[in-house]
């Protein structure tokens, strides 16, 4: 390998390694963003369910004494 060959090899190694690392980080970033978005949606749904249940509970409360054996 001539002198230029070693220089080209060095440049090649640097750019390939940096490019691979960047791609890897981009993949991690995309996956993390997707997971966060999915969790935010799940949290939203869970909170909505929680709210619905909380709203339904006071409706049931007055009816409870009617079914009570002691009433």
């Amino acid at each position, binding site marked *: 390998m001539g002198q*230029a060959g070693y220089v080209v090899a*060095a440049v090649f190694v640097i750019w390939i390694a940096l490019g691979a690392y960047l791609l890897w*980080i981009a993949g*991690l*970033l995309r996956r993390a963003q997707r997971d966060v978005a999915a969790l*935010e949606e799940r949290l*939203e749904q869970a*909170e909505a*369910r929680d709210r619905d249940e909380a709203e339904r509970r006071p409706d049931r409360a007055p009816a409870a004494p009617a079914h009570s054996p002691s009433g």
Partner: protein
Amino acid sequence: MSTSSTELAGPARARPVRLPAAPRDVAVVALGVATLLAMVGALASALLLSPSERVEGDLFRIFYFHLPLALLVYVAFFVVFVASIVYLVRPIRWWDRLALASAEVGLLFCTLVLATGSLWGRPVWGVWWTWDARLTSTLVLWFIYLGYLMVRAYVGDRGRAARYAAVLGIVGFLDVPIVQFSVNWWRTLHPQSTVTASLGQSLPAGMQSALILGLVAFALLYVELLLLRMRVEELRDRQRGLAERVLALEGA
């Protein structure tokens, strides 16, 4: 990365909405473009514009990548050192993220320093590798920070992993002055400390500008990679927090 998702307060709260890119994200993209331009400029300057060296000829062009990368390894591990100390004193997660990101980028740069050094050493010294003090201490440094990342990967408890890694980040930095001064303390094949000499007036103008451009390009790249890697960790932390809240709500 160009957009951020958030929730609105009030009745529209249920739907996450896409907002325009946050200023921080715009800055990261702008820095990425600047880094790419600087890297292309540095490459052109090193390969096409700088003159050939009298003794080593074109081989000397490896120097314009090798030295900036080596200097940034010192910077990266110094950042790990400082962030680790601060994290042990005040365990705020941001410092831990900074240390982790800097260690990872530093290890990548250290790998490239060893690789480019080997590619430079083969035609000049006649060997790919020799157990010279500078090379050996750099290899030890590489193993120390590989160990640092392994501690983070394999210690189960996140807080404990961060503390162990912080201790290793502080102790491991002791090897950096050994790497730097090894060429003065022992007789080595590696040239004497070129850091101050090369940045001074010892290089002709064309070579000096190629070196400075290389330094600027790799410094920008270091910052860009650091920010991206920290962003990944930030999102992972957010993910953990959200998962805990979801489990608490769904389990209730």
